[in-house]
């Protein structure tokens, strides 16, 4: 595969070049110290060196709130809402976020393939960028390197002078066609290491989790957890939702919309007379972590966490999924392996 | 001529807060003529004591939802002075814009929803929805735009969010300001002129009653004083705001959960009419033309004309908002962070003209930046003695009329002051006992 050099000074031109082909979504600064994907308006506002965005690109395929249909109460009829595919380039996506998209693909395709998600998703092209792991990233531990280009149409690897650009798919080739760059023949410096790790692979985790249902860590974490649901809502592989009808003030119509929901929220499993199936905060925390490393993983063989570190960074109580998992592994090794 | 009269209006309607009108005349002798304030006190001082300077304005804006912006800005000014926090010119301009929005909305609300039903002989604005839909819609449009100024600049018109000590937590965007500006010119101006027309036709319903009164407001050399200025009295002249206590002199009366005030005489008036009498020279042409059309003249001593003065000043708020937006945009919006590094811990005073008159907040902070003492003097509280004095003068003048008529005249009098009883009761001066 040919490697090109995209010099820092030409990044803006490259963004403009992409814009000439398609709508481009890319990371922008948001607030004082955060980043968020947004449609590119001004190419100079794009930020490729960022730690992580508030939300992943999931928000474009599974919007935080999505109208499923609108209804007319006078005629008792409904109109389906139009689903517009994201025929766009997603620029500056990190490897773990694309992997998360693939996991969502699985969730929305298996058993009952869902048109809403899959239609939005189908035309999207991805231009990835490598990242420098910060204190929260641990995707390396779940098999996703900081320069992992698999699945991308085009990938940019950060080096001192700029980025090494490689096109991986015909779609990617088309995107860079016409943008002249020098070939890059130099070496690839060693990628920066991760600062956080889960020390065992998924098949061992599966075993660990088999034995961890009653571990004390759930209760201990529950003491700190305030149940705000943030960890669910920032997670690129969470996809649970709620559905609610809203009626216009004119009372002659309204709409049905789905909104991101999360299993850490107490009302998520509330039924008759206020009974909550996972009433204990500890049980909810356990459910969340099991969903990332056990329930779906046992069916697919892969962890369902991509190691982006969002849940830990965003948690005001500082709860770390890495610490929880490592604690389980330690306890398992001590209680099960050593005593065997 | 009847010599006995006994009027008791329990929980007067179409005013903010709870008050009763009590008039009692026996054999031609007026025994009682007063507005009894029966609003339950809320003891804000208990809430303020020991709170951080970040919270003072959040708490004091809850004194009153009608005047929440006025309290908030006044509180911020007092806090900033006490802590030595400088604010930028942009901050001052945005605050002035907010005050215009709040004054505009409050004056429109009062004129259309609370006072107009009296002029039209109905009990509320609701019958007007059917009988005068255009007028109601116009009022709603004007109110909406005025509130949108608050929503856009301060996050919420009632209990604003973004104004904090030292600045704003969010600066509006250029696009948002341009949209407000467009609507001010395209919608507000015609609606305002139409309002003046409508009122002109109703102006004869305004009672003709005059009583010589001391008027107190802020006065500034630069503009029509709302955001800041010296204290100015028609009797006593200009006084520095540092002497605000001498310009209020609060005292407790048994018939009121709110304290009363006086300066040169037994009572004085604050509010739109006081501002008009003191500062009409600083109004823009739109407002002065409206004053001409509505027969409002300098040195007006008819309290019923307060409603007219509100409408006149609303025109100024609208036009000056456009000017402020132009200045902000000419200077270029800067994404400033609020300046919250105290340079000292002491006492500060804020004085602002809010819709009902001049409002004072004074705080003393301890070395941790927590409130050690607080004092707030509210416009409606300042007006209460004047309302009682007006009643005492008015009742003998109209004693020939039916009891029903007299009651209506008294109700209209109180409403003309646009009293905000919540405010007057909820914030009382306090020296904390240690």
């Amino acid at each position: 595969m040919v490697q090109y050099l995209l010099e820092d000074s030409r990044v803006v031109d490259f963004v403009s070049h992409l814009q000439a082909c398609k709508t481009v979504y890319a990371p922008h600064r948001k607030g004082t110290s955060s980043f968020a994907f947004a449609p590119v308006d001004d190419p100079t506002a794009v930020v490729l060196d960022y730690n992580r965005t508030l939300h992943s690109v999931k928000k474009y395929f599974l919007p935080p709130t999505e109208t499923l249909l609108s209804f007319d109460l006078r005629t008792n009829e409904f109109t389906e809402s139009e689903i517009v595919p994201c025929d766009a380039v997603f620029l500056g996506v990190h490897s773990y976020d694309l992997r998360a998209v693939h996991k969502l693909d699985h969730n929305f395709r298996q058993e009952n393939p869902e048109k809403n998600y899959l239609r939005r998703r189908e035309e999207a092209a991805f231009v990835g960028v490598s990242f420098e792991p910060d204190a929260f990233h641990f995707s390396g531990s779940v098999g996703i390197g900081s320069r992992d280009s698999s699945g991308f149409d085009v990938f940019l690897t950060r080096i001192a002078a700029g980025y090494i650009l490689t096109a991986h798919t015909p779609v990617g080739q088309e995107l860079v066609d016409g943008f002249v760059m020098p070939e890059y023949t130099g070496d690839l410096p060693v990628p920066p290491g991760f600062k956080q790790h889960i020390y065992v692979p998924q098949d061992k985790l599966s075993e660990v989790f088999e034995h961890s249902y009653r571990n004390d860590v759930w209760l201990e974490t529950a003491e700190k957890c305030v149940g705000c649901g943030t960890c669910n809502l920032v997670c690129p592989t969470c996809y649970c939702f709620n559905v609610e009808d809203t009626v216009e003030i004119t009372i002659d119509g309204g709409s049905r919309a789905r909104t991101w929901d999360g299993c850490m929220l107490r009302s998520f499993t509330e039924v008759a007379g206020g009974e909550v199936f996972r009433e204990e905060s500890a049980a909810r925390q356990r459910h969340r972590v099991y969903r990332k490393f056990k329930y779906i993983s046992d069916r697919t063989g892969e962890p369902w966490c991509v190691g982006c570190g969002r849940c830990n960074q965003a948690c005001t109580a500082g709860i770390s999924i890495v610490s929880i998992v490592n604690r389980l592994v330690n306890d398992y090794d001590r209680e099960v392996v050593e005593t065997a | 001529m009847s010599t006995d009269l006994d009027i008791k209006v329990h929980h007067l309607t179409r005013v903010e807060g709870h008050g009763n009108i009590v008039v009692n005349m026996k054999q031609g002798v007026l025994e009682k003529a007063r507005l009894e304030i029966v609003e339950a006190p809320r003891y804000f001082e208990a809430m303020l004591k020991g709170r951080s300077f970040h919270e003072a304005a959040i708490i004091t804006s809850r004194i009153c939802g009608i005047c929440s912006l006025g309290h908030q800005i006044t509180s911020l000014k007092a806090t900033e002075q006490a802590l030595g926090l400088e604010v930028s010119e942009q901050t001052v301009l945005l605050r002035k814009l907010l005050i215009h929005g709040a004054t505009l909305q409050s004056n429109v609300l009062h004129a259309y929803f609370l006072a107009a039903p009296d002029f039209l002989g109905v009990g509320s604005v609701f019958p007007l929805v059917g009988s005068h839909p255009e007028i109601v819609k116009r009022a709603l449009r004007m109110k909406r735009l005025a509130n949108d100024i608050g929503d856009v600049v301060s996050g919420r018109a009632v209990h604003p969010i973004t104004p904090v000590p030292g600045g704003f937590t969010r600066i509006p965007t250029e696009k948002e300001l341009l949209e407000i500006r467009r609507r001010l010119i395209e919608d507000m101006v015609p609606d305002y002129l139409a309002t003046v027309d409508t009122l002109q036709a109703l102006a004869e319903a305004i009672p003709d009653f005059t009583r010589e009164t001391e008027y107190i407001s802020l006065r500034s050399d630069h503009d029509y004083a709302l955001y800041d200025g010296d204290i100015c009295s028609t009797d006593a002249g200009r006084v520095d705001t540092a002497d605000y206590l001498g310009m209020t002199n609060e005292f407790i009366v048994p018939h009121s959960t709110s304290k009363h005030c006086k300066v040169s005489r037994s009572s004085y008036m604050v509010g739109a009419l006081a501002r008009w009498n003191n500062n009409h020279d600083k109004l823009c042409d739109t407002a002065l033309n409206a004053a001409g059309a509505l027969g409002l003249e300098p040195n007006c001593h008819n309290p019923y004309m307060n409603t007219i003065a509100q409408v006149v000043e609303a025109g100024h708020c609208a036009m000056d908002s456009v000017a402020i937006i132009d200045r902000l945009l000419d200077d270029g919006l800067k994404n400033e962070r609020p300046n919250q590094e105290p340079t000292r811990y002491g006492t500060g005073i804020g004085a602002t003209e809010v819709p009902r008159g001049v409002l004072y907040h004074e705080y003393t902070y301890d070395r941790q930046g927590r409130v050690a003492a607080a004092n707030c003097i509210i416009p409606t509280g300042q007006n209460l003695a004047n309302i009682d004095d007006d009643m005492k003068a008015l009742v003998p003048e109209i004693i020939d009329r039916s009891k029903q008529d007299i009651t209506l005249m008294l109700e209209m009098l109180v409403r003309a002051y646009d009293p905000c009883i919540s405010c007057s009761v909820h914030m009382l001066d306090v020296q904390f006992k240690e």
Partner: protein
Amino acid sequence: MAKPRVGIFDFTGCEGCELNQLNFEDQLLDILGHVDIVEWREAMDGQVDELDIAFVEGSLSTPECITRIHEIRRKSKVLVALGACAVQGGVNAMKNTRPIEEVREEVYGDQKYLFPTLPALPLSAVVKVDFAVRGCPMTQIEFLKVFTSLVMGKAPIEPDSAVCVECKLKENECVVDKGMICLGPITRMGCGARCPTFGQYCNGCRGLVSAPNIEGMQEILVEKGLAMDEAWKRLQLYNANQLEGVQR
């Protein structure tokens, strides 16, 4: 079907919630098309004997309030509490954290006997409250939701998750990242995370979620830099009644 007859009432509070009802400039005419407002002291004259829906603002803080709220409950089929004062006691309830005599004396000195007062209570402490519109001031979008539900004859759904949820749905930058201290994690959503959206911290005006982890929240506040007593005051601002008896 006859239009529901609606009354609006106020107790101890700032009347900002009532004002907010007049601030529905774009919807007011629709609202008036669905219901007849028959009693509202702040906006109209007159009183009635029977109501379908009563919207009540303010907390109860004098003996007279108690009598009046019973009267309102008696004449109304559905009673909706409007705003933090009515739902939780609101900022008024902070005075409950200090001996009432002391507070009265501070304000009125030796003339305190003139003005009787009680601890500031939410409506639900005295009468049955059917539904709530939370917030200080009451959240307008929630009012419209409750209103349309009632007009349609269904029970409105009360949100019971944290403000953080709405902050996330809007992809706001967390104000904690700006060095602020926010009560969003245990405050009941429904306002659209209004304050964080405008760059300010949430001060808890909509009350707490139904099973809040107060100790966890306290720990966070202290961790982020508030002294314990300050953390406690922050929490009490809108929730003094809810925190009564909770260990600090």
